[in-house]
Each structure stands twice: as structure tokens, then as C-alpha cells.
């Protein structure tokens, strides 16, 4: 990546270096000016957002104990349930789309295409009223139900597509080897292809977790007590909406950034394997000694 982009410009000479330095200084000055203007607007007596009274709630344990931590737990709970359900449903749907039986393939295909096109919020609203009037769910479970259903329907379809493309990206020989030893197409899929495809998809699944975490904020609209809703409750109580929103974005950014890093690390780990796709949790695990040797060879060969 870096080697490629550096081709877009020559290595700077003395004049260009001076120019770049001036541009860099102008850029930093513009940024500082923007920050200054924002701070000035916030400190302006009409707004008075920088006063200690509006920021002190964040050093009080009660704000965290009563609002932010329960909100964070709500967000994580909805995201965790949704990701588990989405992976299970997504793998089943993906298998359905790869099925030998045309009706199964078509039904799964229509299902995936349809629910991928429906916005998550629409699905949450529907689940909310469906849960309330048809299933008779009430109380605090209803918003969680709506949030999880909304997130699961959309994300399982995304994961189904990941499964499908993961299986397609495997070498043909894998499927042929499965058939050659007498496995049925379903057995080949579930014992040979899927484990490899899912291992290869692991980084994408972690990235999808970021999407789920972000989308869980939509559940604000069905009155689910997630981070944004709890933050708003805190802001209403303390009268500090702007500082609260800043703290909330910092929390979201930190969690999602950490997850993105995890996804990248997983990807790098998978890439460093000899075959590009490492064998997944099949019965016959990889010989650890062999893997270590392969990795050593890879390290010697350098990055590809």
C-alpha cells in the first residue's frame, strides 16, 4: 500500500520539502483555528458548554453507575445476542443458498436479498409492534426483542453472503476431494468447505460486529436502554447534552476502533498461514510442529 501510493509523487527535493512544510504548517494552523472557533463557540456565555458544572458529572461515579455503564451493557448485550444469532442464521442461510435443491436455494436467495434491502430501523419498528400486538411481549424485554430482531435479520443476510463468497473463493480441489472420498454434497459443504470458509471469514465477522454495535444505537428509537438513550437520560438530568455527546462518541469510537484492530490482527494472522486459508476446526487438527515450521519459512520469505 505505502509503496504504491508513494508512486503518486516524486521523492520531494529541497524546494518541494519547503513547500510541503509550509502546507503542513498551514494545515495545522487551519485545524487549530477550527478547534479554537469550536471552543470559543462552546465557551460563549450563551452556550457555556465548557463550564466545570457540565463536565463534572463524568468524574462522579453515580453518572457512570446509573447511566453510562448500564447503557454500555445494554448496547453490548443487544450486540452480543445479535451477533450470535446472526452467525448461526447466516451460516444456515449461506448453506441454503449453496444448496443442491433449487427450491431451498431460491427461497434462501429471495430471503437474503429482501432483508438486505430493508433498513434495520424499519425491521426494528416492525419487530416492536409485532412483539407487542402479536406475541404479547411487554415490559423491558420488548425493546430488546425489537433491537435484536432488527439487527439479526439484516446481519444474518450479510453473513450469509460472506459465507457464500467464502465458499466460492476456496480452491476447486477442496470440493472435488470431498466428493472423491465419497462424501455427499451436504457433507462436503459442512465438513470440508464451511470450516475453511468460516475461518477465512473471521475478520469479516469481527468487522460486522462493529456494524452491529453501531446499528444498536438505532434501538434508541424503540426506547431500548442502550448507550445513546442512557446518555440522553443523563444529559437531561444534568443539563449537559454537548459534553455527554462528546463522551458517548469517544466510548463508541474506542470500542469500535479496538474491534477494527482485532479484525486486522486476525486477518494478518490468517494471511501469514501457508495456504492463505488455514484449516478450520476440523476433526484432524493441523500438526502443530508442521505449522510452526511453515510459519518460520513464511517469515523468512518476507511479506507477499
Amino acid at each position, binding site marked *: *500500500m505505502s509503496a*504504491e*501510493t508513494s*508512486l*503518486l*509523487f*516524486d521523492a*520531494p527535493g529541497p524546494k*518541494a520539502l519547503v513547500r*510541503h512544510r509550509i*502546507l*503542513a504548517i498551514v*494545515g*495545522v494552523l487551519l*485545524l487549530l483555528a477550527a478547534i479554537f472557533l469550536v471552543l470559543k*463557540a*462552546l465557551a460563549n456565555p*450563551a*452556550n457555556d*458548554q465548557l463550564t466545570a458544572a457540565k463536565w463534572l458529572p463524568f468524574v462522579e461515579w453515580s453518572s457512570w453507575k446509573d447511566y453510562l455503564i448500564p447503557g454500555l451493557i445494554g448496547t453490548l448485550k443487544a450486540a452480543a445476542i445479535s451477533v450470535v444469532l446472526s452467525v448461526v442464521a447466516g451460516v444456515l442461510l449461506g448453506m441454503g443458498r449453496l444448496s443442491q435443491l433449487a427450491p431451498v436455494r431460491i427461497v434462501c436467495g429471495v430471503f437474503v*436479498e*429482501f432483508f438486505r*434491502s*430493508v*433498513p*434495520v*430501523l*424499519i425491521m426494528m*419498528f*416492525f419487530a416492536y*409492534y*409485532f412483539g407487542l*400486538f*402479536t406475541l404479547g411481549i411487554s415490559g423491558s424485554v420488548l425493546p430488546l426483542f425489537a433491537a435484536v430482531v432488527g439487527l439479526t435479520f439484516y446481519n444474518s443476510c450479510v453473513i450469509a453472503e460472506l459465507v457464500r463468497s467464502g465458499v466460492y473463493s476456496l480452491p476447486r480441489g477442496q470440493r472435488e476431494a470431498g466428493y472423491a472420498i465419497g462424501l455427499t454434497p451436504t457433507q462436503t459443504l459442512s465438513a470440508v468447505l464451511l470450516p475453511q470458509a468460516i475461518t477465512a471469514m473471521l475478520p469479516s465477522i469481527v468487522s460486522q460486529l*462493529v456494524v452491529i*454495535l*453501531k*446499528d*444498536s*444505537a*438505532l434501538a*434508541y*428509537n424503540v426506547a431500548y436502554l442502550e448507550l*445513546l438513550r442512557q446518555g*440522553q437520560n443523563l444529559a437531561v438530568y444534568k443539563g449537559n*447534552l*454537548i459534553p455527554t*455527546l462528546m463522551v*458517548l*462518541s469517544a466510548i*463508541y*469510537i474506542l*470500542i*469500535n*476502533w479496538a474491534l*477494527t484492530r482485532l479484525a486486522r490482527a486476525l486477518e494478518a494472522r490468517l494471511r501469514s498461514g501457508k495456504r492463505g486459508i488455514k484449516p478450520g476446526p476440523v476433526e484432524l487438527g493441523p500438526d502443530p510442529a508442521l505449522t510452526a515450521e511453515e510459519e518460520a519459512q513464511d517469515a523468512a520469505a518476507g511479506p507477499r
Partner: protein
Amino acid sequence: MDGLQTLLGEYDVVAAFWMTIKLTFFGAIGAFIIGTVVAVMRVSPVKVFQTFGTAYVTLVRNTPLTLLVFGCAFGLAITLQINLAPENSPTFIVDNNFRWGVVALAIYHAAFVAEAIRSGINTVPQGQAEAARAIGLPFLPTITTIVLPQAFRGAIAPLGNTLIALTKNTTVLATIGVAEPALMMRNMFEFNISLLYPIFIIVAAGFVILTLPMGLFFTWWSRKLAVQR
């Protein structure tokens, strides 16, 4: 069938989806402009600009759109009184929410546009930029006349995905009361709960009708513009 007719008679479904189209249109233009600038910053020779670009993408991509929309409408507009519409106009609240909504959509999706364009830049063969440098073009002309036009061709598919996501994400503006399909759907549920399924089918079908052709079109277009390399 009766249910569908009742709903179509009582609610202006077309107007709600027209709002989706307007939001998508303006949001996409904004996102495209900001995203292109950010993508160019990320590949520019000046380190500070690279850092700006990367920081923008990292920060915005990891923030929920709901939080951005909420922050624009309740934080910037209501708390800080920064308004994007004339305050004495009779449609002030509606206009202000609409415009802040478009701003939030543009800011959020710009991060994804920037990533798409950067991946497009990676599809342009190195010889192109080298040739541009060989005839003495500086960085900006190289980017704007040689690399970006080819990068857009290579970025059609991810840009199309971003546009589809933008279309669906306009529903988030229901959070701040923009009269789009999600808000209409909630009103329908409040007043015509007996028509649970017809309501869902109308709104869901609207989005399928909007996004499915978009997906097909972008797949076709990216194949048409694909360069054999």
C-alpha cells in the same frame, strides 16, 4: 388488499419515499465531495494531510450514524442554536432538521466514499502515475487528471454499495422527525395497528424497489467500466 388500499389512501406514501430520494440525492453529493477530498488527503505527499484523512475516516467510521444525526439536530441545532434554515420562515423546524440530516448523512458516508475511492486508486496501475510524473506533472494534476478518473471506474462497485447503504440509512433521520418512511411507518403502527403486515410490506417494498435496481445497475456499470488488466 383492502389494507393496502386504506393505507395508500390515508398516508402519502409517495411523499415519504420522495423524501428518501431527496435525502439520498443531497447526502450523496455531499458525501462524494467530502469523501474525494479526504481520499486525496490520504494519498497526498504531506504527512499532516495524510494524518487528517486517516483520522477523519477512523473517527467517523466508528461513530454510529444515529449519534451523529442526534448530535447535529439536538446538539448543534437546538442546544447551540446553529441553524441552517432562515429562522423566521414558517417551515423553519422542518427545513432545519432536513438540512442538518443531510449534513450528518454526508459527513458519515464520506468516510465510506473515501475508503471506496482509495481502493479505486489501488486498482490504477502504477505505470499511470509514473507516466504522469515522467511528463513532469506535480501531485495534484497527477491525481485529478490521471489517477482519479481511472480510480472512479475501479471504485464503482464499492461506491454503489455506499449509495445503497446511504439510501437505507436515510431512515435514521426518523430519530429527529424528518418525514421519511420510517417515521410514517411508526405513525401507521400507532393509528392502524390492525394492518401490521400491510404496513410492513408497503414500507419494505418501497426500499426494495429503490435499492434493488440500484444494486443491479451498479453491478452492470462496474462490469461495463471494468478495465482488463
